[in-house]
């Protein structure tokens, strides 16, 4: 293997461009010196010009490079500026405009890795020189590459039928392209279908959601796959092959009319932990709620008497269309899609973890999701706000914010929706029961349109606010007037004292958490999660719905806590990104790929098992391995592992990296030359 070493005669004509980035780089690095140093000390390595400029990424800066390529006949370009994750594309495009293959440009970071992290100007300048030298040595070994072009399949898979997923599916379907909408519950609708009113307008969640659900359920371009899970994802952007398990409903949907008689007649009542949040019951054959889409019920095999004991079949007896099919089996479906949108939503924080708030131990401590169901006119109490006994109307209610959020012991992040949700509850409790309502908050967070106006309105309604963290909710009365009550012990930071407030009911505004299986889902689709478990977007500000994996997009709370308007916006945004890709018909892939030199391959098959994307096929007849460039993602593990050195990785070849090492170590000129 060859390294730099100053041995190989260099025929390239290299231009080195050092960016000031205003004062961001120039403030800590002597950029002019770096540029001059490169032009003189790296001259024998092919550097023909070294320039510094205020903002290389500006159009004038780019023109500078383009002009030099044309006039000086540059064959390689090194730009020392910010992180390649920001401007690699910018400078590659500039090179392309000037007729140079874009992959003959190398961007090295002297901002994030030098000027912003170091404090000694001399040392920072020396390091910048070493980094430029590494870039120069590396760029010599760059090869002109052509991006891979692959066709985009026009269908899209949307995983998760909450409001974000529904929105995304509808946008794509309305643009005329097919969508598979997969939902693991029997109906689409997600968490929003459980809510009663939505802040800040207090319009009813069902009234605005169900028309969308129906539209998604009847849209000719949407294939609705409820009670289904994605089992396997293969392929790459434009050409995913997805295996979906359609769990057996035990109901023939071709015959079922959704009349609901089976649910009436089913003798088995089951506590509904999902839709009713444990407050209400459903039958063993059920649709989660009256407006469910699709309208067909499912049989919950674990609780069905027939599957337990072999007799009953009440549903089958009473079904007017003979739609019940106890023998129905799971079905495996394979679909081809070009892009995938993950809108898998959130789970709520398990309030039992904070034992001092008494949830699960003290009957009249409720979670916010239970409260949503209780407020809902179609819920277990028909919209009556009552204690756990089902009849007593509370006279005083305490709402505790930030349960499991902004708390070092549980989750550091803010769950975004809880302040507004708590204010909504304050209003509903006040309106429906006339009870005194206390809100215990750390900070009131009401950004976005009309939210703070809503807060002002709740303040005017007479809700009491206590600023401070609640220490404990207890039923142990100490003072007169506390008997039979729940006592909220809290610090009132504005009054500067401890308070004990007796109430009848406590509502815990629990935070949002990533789905318990978010990590497995991320792995299945080949995307990454943050340390908390939320799906990671490509860029936190500028690319919030794309992921690092081409062709996989995210929307809604799967990406992080957010309210309904933001989820809808992300659903639509992800759809727009997908539509953009579909309409290109073809996509360009980064040509960072590995390939096997078949003459050198010994057929040992060590690489075969290393590839996570099954991109390496072994040809038994010729006893050689071959890499499918469209499946290869360019990680380079096989390149590093090949004992014969038969695999090379474009963009990250051994020659490039070894040369960069030598360059960084200044072997091309000697370490002392840096000063």
């Amino acid at each position: 293997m060859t390294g730099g070493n100053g041995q190989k005669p260099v025929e390239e004509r290299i231009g080195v461009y050092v960016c000031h980035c205003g004062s961001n780089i120039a403030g800590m690095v002597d950029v002019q010196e770096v540029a001059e140093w490169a032009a003189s000390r790296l001259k024998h390595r092919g550097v023909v010009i070294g320039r510094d400029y205020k903002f290389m990424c500006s159009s004038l800066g780019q023109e500078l490079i383009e002009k030099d390529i044309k006039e000086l006949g540059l064959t390689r370009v090194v730009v020392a500026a910010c992180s390649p994750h920001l401007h690699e594309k910018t400078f590659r495009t500039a090179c392309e405009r000037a007729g140079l293959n874009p992959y003959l440009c190398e961007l090295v970071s002297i901002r994030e890795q030098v000027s912003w992290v170091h404090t000694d100007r001399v040392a920072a300048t020396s390091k910048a020189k070493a980094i430029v030298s590494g870039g120069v040595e590396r760029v010599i070994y760059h090869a002109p590459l052509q991006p891979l072009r692959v066709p985009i399949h026009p269908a899209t898979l949307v995983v998760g039928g909450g409001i974000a997923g529904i929105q995304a599916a509808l946008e794509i379907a309305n643009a005329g392209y097919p969508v598979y909408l997969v939902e693991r519950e029997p109906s689409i609708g997600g968490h929003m279908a459980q809510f009663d009113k939505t802040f800040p307008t207090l319009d009813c969640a069902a009234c605005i959601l169900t028309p969308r659900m129906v539209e998604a359920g009847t849209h000719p371009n949407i294939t609705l796959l409820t009670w289904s899970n994605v089992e396997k994802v293969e392929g790459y952007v434009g050409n995913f092959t997805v295996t979906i398990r359609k769990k057996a409903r035990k109901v023939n949907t071709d015959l079922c009319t959704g009349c609901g008689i089976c649910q009436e007649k089913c003798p088995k009542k089951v506590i509904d932990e999902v839709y009713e949040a444990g407050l209400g019951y459903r039958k063993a054959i059920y649709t989660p709620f009256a407006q469910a889409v699709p309208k067909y019920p499912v049989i919950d095999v674990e609780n069905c008497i027939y599957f337990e004991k072999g007799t009953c079949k009440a549903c089958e007896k009473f079904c007017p269309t003979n739609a019940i099919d106890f023998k129905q089996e799971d079905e495996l479906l394979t679909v081809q899609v070009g892009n995938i949108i993950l809108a898998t939503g959130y789970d709520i924080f398990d309030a039992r973890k904070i034992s001092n708030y008494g949830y699960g131990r003290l009957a009249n401590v409720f979670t916010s999701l239970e409260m949503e169901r209780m407020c809902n006119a179609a819920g277990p109490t028909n919209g009556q706000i009552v204690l756990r006994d089902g009849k007593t109307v509370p006279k005083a209610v305490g709402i505790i914010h930030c349960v499991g959020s902004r708390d070092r012991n549980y989750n550091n992040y803010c769950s975004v929706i809880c302040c507004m949700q708590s204010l909504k509850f304050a209003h509903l409790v006040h309106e429906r029961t006339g009870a005194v309502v206390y809100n215990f908050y750390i900070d009131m967070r009401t950004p976005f349109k009309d939210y703070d106006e809503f807060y002002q309105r709740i303040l005017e309604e007479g809700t009491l606010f206590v600023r401070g963290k609640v220490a404990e909710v207890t039923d142990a009365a100490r003072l007169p007037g506390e008997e039979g009550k729940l006592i909220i012990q809290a610090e009132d930071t504005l009054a500067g004292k401890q308070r004990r407030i007796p109430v009848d009911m406590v509502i815990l505004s629990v935070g949002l958490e990533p789905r318990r299986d978010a990590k497995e889902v991320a792995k299945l689709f080949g995307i990454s999660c943050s340390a908390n478990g939320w799906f990671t977007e490509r860029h936190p500000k500028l690319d919030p719905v794309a992921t690092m994996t081409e062709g996989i997009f995210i929307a809604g709370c799967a990406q992080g806590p957010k309210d309904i308007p933001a989820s809808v916006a992300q659903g639509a945004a992800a759809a727009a990104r997908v539509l953009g890709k579909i309409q290109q018909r073809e996509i360009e892939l980064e040509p960072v790929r590995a390939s096997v030199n078949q003459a050198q391959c010994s057929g040992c098959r060590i690489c075969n098992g290393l590839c996570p994307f099954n991109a390496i096929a072994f040809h038994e007849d010729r006893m050689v391995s071959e890499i499918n460039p469209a499946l290869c993602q360019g990680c380079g593990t096989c390149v590093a592992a090949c004992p014969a050195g038969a695999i090379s990785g474009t963009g990250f070849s051994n020659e490039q990296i070894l040369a960069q090492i030598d360059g960084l170590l200044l072997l091309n000129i000697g370490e002392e030359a840096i000063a």
Partner: protein
Amino acid sequence: MTNETFEPIIIGFTCNWCSYRAADLAGTSRLKYPPNIRLIRLMCSGRLDPTFVFKALANGADGVLITGCHPGECHYLEQNYKALRRFHLMRRTLKGLGIEPERIKLVWASAAEGVKFAAEAAAFVEEICALGPLQWGKPREEPSHREIEEVPA
């Protein structure tokens, strides 16, 4: 050269998806660490050919920092485990060559861990300072009773 004036040169390998972004984040957060470390971006820590590490040490680096995504968070699913395996092999090889295995270090840093990246980089510079210059290939003062460990082929 005494340890007080010794400024080690460290080559750092980062993966494109996590640890390089951690280094970027350390920059955007204006966290400070010593300038001794010079980074190379790979697509994945699984790309790390042990040759790169030995070449760096042989050609003048005093230490090599290897960084990647946390286990279970690899952009390429599980290639960082391959880096982990090679890391242990490389340490054994260094030991066999009579070089302190602590001259190479493996750090997992997610794209969100700029603080960790800066802290680990700073700590590694100190560790290498304590070990002194590597001086690969130059005659060393060997204690006569040095045990030669059998390294299986």
